[in-house]
């Protein structure tokens, strides 16, 4: 999979309460959820973020509650991929299950600045920073995770598996 987009940098320890505050958890429409994404961090985030921008985050992104609405809100706001120092474990699973590609690279996070143009290629496992003319290597994801991601998440993946059974 290949991604291209403008970097938007955020900090460390952004928890799921900041990504989607508890008071919105009753919203079932993901489009409505997306209107409040990262509202706890920055009330203007939805105005700043443009669909396809690549979020570049610090350590422990998505820590806290297991609420999958955090991944869902990001997805419906247009987030397809993120680069981070580290992702909290439940968020990592939830994002995969929603088909959001997460890449961990301390080097990339240190180097990339907001508005840098970023290309990610998961066939060569590299991130290219076109603005700074730099490249960063990635650790490949396990095959079964890639299969889930390539199908667009766990639900479509399971559907696909059911179909091939028949």
């Amino acid at each position, binding site marked *: 999979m290949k991604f291209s987009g403008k970097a938007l940098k955020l900090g460390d*320890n952004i*928890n799921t*309460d*900041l990504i989607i*505050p*508890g*008071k919105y*958890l*009753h919203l079932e429409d993901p489009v409505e959820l997306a209107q409040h994404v990262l509202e*706890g961090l920055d009330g203007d985030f939805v105005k700043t973020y443009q669909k396809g921008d690549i979020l570049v985050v610090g*350590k*422990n992104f998505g*820590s*806290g*509650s*297991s*609420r*999958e609405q955090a*991944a869902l809100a990001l997805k419906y706001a247009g987030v397809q991929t993120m680069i981070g120092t*580290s992702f*909290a*474990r*439940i968020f990592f*699973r*939830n994002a995969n*299950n*929603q088909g959001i590609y997460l890449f961990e690279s301390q080097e990339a996070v240190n180097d990339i600045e907001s508005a840098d143009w970023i290309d990610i290629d998961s066939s060569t496992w590299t991130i290219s920073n076109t603005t700074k003319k730099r490249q960063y290597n990635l650790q490949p994801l*396990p095959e*079964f995770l890639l299969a889930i991601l390539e199908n667009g*998440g*766990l*639900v479509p993946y*399971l*559907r696909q598996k*059911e179909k091939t059974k028949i």
Partner: protein
Amino acid sequence: MGQTISEKIFSRASGKEVFANEFVEASVDCAMSHDNSLQIMKILQKLGVSHLAQPQNIVIILDHRSPAPSEHVAANHQFIRAGVRQFRIPHFFDIGEGVCHQLLVEKGFVKPGMLIVGSDSHTTTYGALGALGTGIGVTDMAAVWMTGKLWFKVPESIRITITGSLPDHVYAKDLILFIIGKKGADGANYNACEFYGDIFADMSLDSRLCIANQSMEMGVKAALIPPQERDAASFCFADTDATYVESIEYDISHLEPQVACPDQVDKVRPVSEVTDVSINQAVIGSCTNGRIEDIQQAARIVKGNTVADHVRLLIIPASRAIYLEAIRRGYLQTLVKAKATILNPGCGPCLGLHQGVLAEDECAISTTNRNFKGRMGSLASSVYLASPATVAASALKGSIADPRESMK
């Protein structure tokens, strides 16, 4: 080659000998979900699934918004009750029974060495009984309901040894907040923590549950306190030559009461450094500290006193059984006389949904497990975390107080 507790539990659950960093498909012994069963049921309906692999292993508890605070939530609860019948799920606990993590333990679903998943991050609680409990999201849970299995990465483990014993008026909550302060909010991300030390030999189950629950706030996948009964199955204990990614020792002989300051659980200070912060609300309850010994600590401190005029003291017993026991022992009478408000068993105001939401610029001290920005209501409110004794002492004084002073 020796194995950690996690390696042993995942070996048993996946049917082959595995070690840290291996990926496994493991059979889940018990699957817990709460109000978010709604989303799980909707995912399965979307997939056209009507037959579940092992409905007898599924437990559903309504606790997060209970009783329903709005028509919308009432409709959601109604949907879940219908789903419970439709999917033939035998273990369902409706509103008022208690907080999920307390009920699962109290009703006997948790046994040493089990692999338990919950669609709630504080599923780590079950490590207090030597079970590997870990949180997952609703899509993962839908897969568990369908197949009875889930993929996992076997975690690396951190060995934490506690030496010394807790000083007077210092509790399990202080101990675990202290450790989180040292390790940091991501200090154990992806790892399992195993806890050792003589202190655990005679520590109450209530205190062990508090430690395993609160440990989530350093990112743990599981927090395991080996069973104290030495006759438990061998897969509940680590081998002496098991490999740990880190071994740490903490001496707690001189530990002060601890307070986690806004807006991160790892911003931990000794209470003496934060006394005099004025508070509007004091909360004693939750899956972390709403058990009988917690209510006892609070009752002891407020006995014969009255809560400060500008403070709302909320008490939430973590289950119906705890509620009844607190009535029987007279704790609730003491607390109500001191002008506390008693709420029904459930999650209460912990996640800012109902029953004690904070307004702008308000401040709470709470025994719950998170103090994130906006956690209990307004984004401009703040939450401090502490033991039930510290919270009760603060409710009397009207500002953060040292429980050792109130007990003089």
